[in-house]
C-alpha cells in the first residue's frame, strides 16, 4: 500500500512537472474511502509525503500554512471491486486531471486470540483454499519430526514444519465414484504409520510410511467420533448428508462395539464427559438445533438450546478434569465462537471465555490426544479454511 502511495507521488510529480511541485497546494486531509485500516492508510500517506518531498513538494502541514496555490492536489484512497485505488485529483484553474495507482486486494489478517478463565488456547495450524475436514498432529517420534495430517474432500495431505509453518510434504488423492455432499464431513483416525479416513459412504486406509497413500472403497462403517482403540465412540453417517443416525456406540472394555437400542433421530455430534470420581455425561447435538445431556445416574435428560452443531470432549488436568467445547449457534453467515463448559449439577457453566473465529466453524473434532481438539473455520473475508489446534490450560 505504501509503495503504491509513493508511486502515486511520482506519477503526480511527472504529471505536473517537478519544477512546479513546490508551488502545488497539497490539500489536507487525504481521505480514506476504502476498507483499509486507518493505520495502513496513515502509513501509506506518510510514504506519499516522503516521496512527494523528495520530488520537491511541500508536505500537508506546510501546504496548510501557505495560501492556496494555482494547482491543487487532493489524495484519496478508494476501492474498486478488484483493487485498492490511490487517486490524485489535480486541479489547475478550470483544468482537471486524475491520476490512479491500483493495488490488488490482499487477504485480511486473521482475528486475534482471546484470553480466558481456564484458558482455551487457539493455535493456528494452516490455511487452505479447500475445506479441511479433520486434521491430526502426529508428535515427533524417534528421528521423525512432528507432522500434521490433513483430510480434505479430495486428498489426504502430510505436512511438516519448516521455519515455523506447515509445508506440504506428500499427498494422496481420494478416489470416489459419487459426488460428495455439499456439507461434507470427514474424520481422521491416524497414528504414526497411518490409520483410517472416514468419509460419507467411503472409507480410506491411509498409510503414512514414507509417502502418503489412501486406498478408498465404498463403505458405511461407523465412524470413530472420539477416542482411539478401546476408547472409541462411533456413529453411522448418512451418505449424502451431514449427520449421523443411530446408533452412536462406544466400545466396551474388550474393544467390542456395543450399540444401544434404536434411536430415531439423527445427530450432528456426540461426546461423553467423565469427572473425577463423578458421573458421566453424554451429549449430542440434534438436527433440530437442540443439544441433549443424559445423566445415567439420575436417569434424567436435559435439553440445551443456543448451542451450535459441533461439540468435542476434552480431558485435562484442569477444573473437573473434563470439559466440553461447544460452537456458537447461528448459521454460516456469521463468525463463530467456541467455548469450554463444565457441568456441575448437570448445569452448563462456562469455564473459558469464548474464542472467536473469523467465520463459521465447519469442523470440530477431538484429537487423538484427548487434551486437544481440532477446529476448522471458514474465514468469511477470505473464504479460506483455517485449521486450529485447541487446548485448555489451567488458570488464567
Amino acid at each position, binding site marked *: 500500500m505504501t509503495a503504491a502511495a509513493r508511486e502515486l507521488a511520482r506519477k503526480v510529480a511527472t504529471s505536473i512537472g517537478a519544477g512546479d511541485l513546490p508551488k502545488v497546494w497539497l490539500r489536507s486531509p487525504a481521505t480514506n474511502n*476504502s476498507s483499509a485500516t486507518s493505520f495502513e492508510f496513515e502509513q501509506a500517506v506518510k510514504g506519499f509525503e516522503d516521496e512527494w518531498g523528495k520530488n520537491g513538494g511541500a508536505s500537508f502541514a506546510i501546504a496548510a500554512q501557505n495560501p492556496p496555490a494555482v494547482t491543487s492536489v487532493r489524495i*484519496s484512497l*478508494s476501492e*474498486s*471491486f*478488484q483493487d485498492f*485505488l490511490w*487517486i490524485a*485529483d489535480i486541479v489547475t484553474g478550470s483544468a482537471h486531471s*486524475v491520476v*490512479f495507482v*491500483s493495488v490488488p486486494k490482499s487477504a485480511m489478517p486473521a482475528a486475534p486470540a482471546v484470553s480466558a478463565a481456564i484458558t482455551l488456547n487457539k493455535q493456528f495450524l494452516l490455511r487452505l483454499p479447500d475445506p479441511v475436514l479433520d486434521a491430526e498432529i502426529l508428535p515427533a517420534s524417534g528421528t521423525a519430526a512432528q507432522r500434521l495430517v490433513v483430510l480434505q474432500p479430495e486428498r489426504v495431505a502430510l505436512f511438516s514444519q519448516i521455519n515455523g509453518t506447515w509445508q506440504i510434504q506428500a499427498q494422496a488423492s481420494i478416489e470416489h465414484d*459419487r*459426488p*460428495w455432499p*455439499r*456439507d461434507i464431513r470427514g474424520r481422521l483416525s491416524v497414528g504414526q504409520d497411518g490409520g483410517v479416513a472416514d468419509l460419507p459412504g467411503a472409507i480410506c486406509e491411509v498409510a503414512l510410511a514414507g509417502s502418503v497413500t489412501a486406498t478408498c472403497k465404498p463403505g458405511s462403517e461407523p465412524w470413530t467420533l472420539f*477416542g482411539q482403540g*478401546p*476408547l472409541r*465412540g462411533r456413529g453411522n453417517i448418512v451418505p*449424502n*448428508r*451431514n*449427520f449421523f443416525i443411530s*446408533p*452412536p*456406540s*462406544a466400545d*466396551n*472394555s474388550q474393544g467390542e462395539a*456395543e450399540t*444401544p*437400542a*434404536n*434411536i*430415531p*433421530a439423527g445427530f450432528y455430534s*456426540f461426546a*461423553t464427559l467423565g469427572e473425577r470420581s463423578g458421573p*458421566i455425561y*453424554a451429549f*449430542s447435538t*440434534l*438436527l*433440530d*438445533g437442540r443439544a*441433549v445431556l*443424559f*445423566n*445415567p445416574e439420575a*436417569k434424567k435428560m436435559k435439553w440445551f438450546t*443456543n448451542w451450535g452443531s459441533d461439540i468435542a470432549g476434552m480431558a485435562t488436568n484442569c477444573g473437573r478434569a473434563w470439559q466440553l467445547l461447544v460452537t456458537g*449457534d447461528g*448459521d*454460516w*453467515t456469521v463468525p*463463530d465462537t467456541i467455548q469450554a463448559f463444565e457441568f456441575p449439577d448437570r448445569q452448563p457453566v462456562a469455564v473459558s471465555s469464548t474464542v472467536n473465529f473469523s467465520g*463459521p466453524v465447519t469442523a470440530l473434532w477431538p484429537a487423538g490426544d484427548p487434551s486437544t481438539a481440532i477446529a476448522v473455520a471458514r474465514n468469511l473475508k477470505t*473464504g479460506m479454511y483455517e485449521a486450529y489446534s485447541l487446548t485448555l490450560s489451567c488458570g488464567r
Partner: protein
Amino acid sequence: MKRIASRYLAAASFLAALIVFAMAASGARRPRYGGTLNIDLQGRVTSLDPTRKQATVADGTVQEHLLELIADRLVALDRFGRPQPSLAISWRHNDKFTRWKFQLRPNVRFWNATPLTPDAVVASLQAISPSWRVSAANDSVIVESDSPLPNLLYVLAEARNSILLRESGGDIVGTGPFRLVSWETRRHAMFAANDDYWGRRPFADTIDVQMGRTVRERMIDLDLGKTDIADVAPDRARIDAAHGIRISASDPDELLALVFARSSARTKDIRIRQALSLAIDRASLVDFVLQKEGEPAGALLPQWSSGYEFLFSTTADTATARQLASQIPLRPALKLGYDFGDPIERMIAERIVVNAQAAGISIFARPIVDNTTNSSANGAANAAEYDARILRVPMASPAPGVALEALLQTLAPLADLDTSLAAPLEDSTNSERMYARECAVVGTYEIIPLVHVPEVVGLSARVRDWVPARWGAWRLADVWLDGASQ
C-alpha cells in the same frame, strides 16, 4: 483406560433411550437438507434460455436467478468475486488475451445423462456470443477473438454464458445443482435437487417459483409463511422491515439513468441536457423515492465496483442550471418517458419534472405503455414521442471493466453517443482508462446517471445461510431451511 471406556459405553447406552422427543425449530449451525424453498417473484419469464431476451429488467433478473439453478458456466465467481473453476478446471491465455484455452471438468453430465463434451460447450457459447471463435480440442475448448479479452473469465461467469444443451424441441438442459421438473411460461417453475450434481448436492430438495406475483401477494405470502424468498421493491424495504420481514439487499447493482433520444431535435443543444443534469436532486431521489435504498449516481458504475465514482459530482446546482437554461433562446417543453408498469420510474420522473421546473426547464412526464420487449421499450426513447426516457440497466458483472462495456453496449444505440465512446475499452482492467471513458460519456450529457439501486428481497425466518453475492447472485444451492425434515 478401561474404566474410561466403560464410562463411554454407559453414557452411549443411556443416550439410546433419550432421543425420542418432539423436535422444536431452533437455530443449529450446521446446514440441514430437505424441504421445499418457496419463492415469489414479480418478474415473468418466458424461457430460461438466455438467447430469449425477456420483456423487462425484472423479468431478465428472474431469468438470471433461475438459470443459476439449472446451469453452470465455465467459470464461477466466488463470494469475493474471484474467478474460480466451474465446468472448466483450468485455463490459460496468450500474452495478448486473444486466445484462451479451457480444460473441461471430466465426468460431468447434463441432467438427461448426456456427457458434457467440448462440442456441447462450443455449441452453447456460440449461441450466445457469435463474435467469438469457439472451437473444441480434445478435452478443452478454445475461445479466440480479434480484440483482447482480458476480462473473459468475468464474461464467462455471466448468467448469459451458462452452458446449456439445446434439445430439438426447444427445451434446455443444464448441469446445475437443480433440474427443471415443471414449467408454466410466465407463471410457475418447479426445480428438484440434482442428486448427482458434480458440485455437491444442494441442501433444499425442491424449489417452487411463482412468477408474476404482485407486491401485495408477495408480502402476504411472506407474512403468512407461504413463501421463503420474495423480491421487494427498494422503496418498500424499510416498511417491510418495520413489519418484521427479514430484508436482504445487494450492493447497488442497477443503474437508473435518463437517456436522451437520438432523434430528439429539442435536446440537441448540450446546454439543455447539462442544465437538466445539474437540476436533478439525486439525493432526494434516494431519500424520498427509494427510501434510502440506493445511492445517487454521478457515473455509470457504482462506487463499490469502480472505486472512482466519488470523483463525479451528484450535487444539484439549481442556480447554474437556471443560468444555463436561460441562455437557450427558445426552450421547448420536453417529454420524459417512463415505464408504465414501474412505480419507481414514475416517481423519479415526477421528481425530475419538479427539479427541472425549478431550473426553468419545462418538461412533462409521460408513461410508455407499449413495454412488451426490451427492444421496443428502449426503442421508445428514440421515438419522436419522447425526448428522453428513464432506463433501468442492471450490471452484467461485478468486474468494472466488464460492467462498463456492457452498459455502453446497451445504452449507446439509444443515445446520440459517438461510436468511439461505445467501443470496447483498450484495457478493461485499467481504472484510469475506465474513468476517462466514463468522464467522456457523462460529459456528453446524452446519458444522465440518476441513482444506483440494489436488489432487495424479503426472507422468511426459516431461510438459513442466505449469502447472496454483493452483486445480487443468489447462490440458492447453499441455502437451507430451518425445520426441514431431512
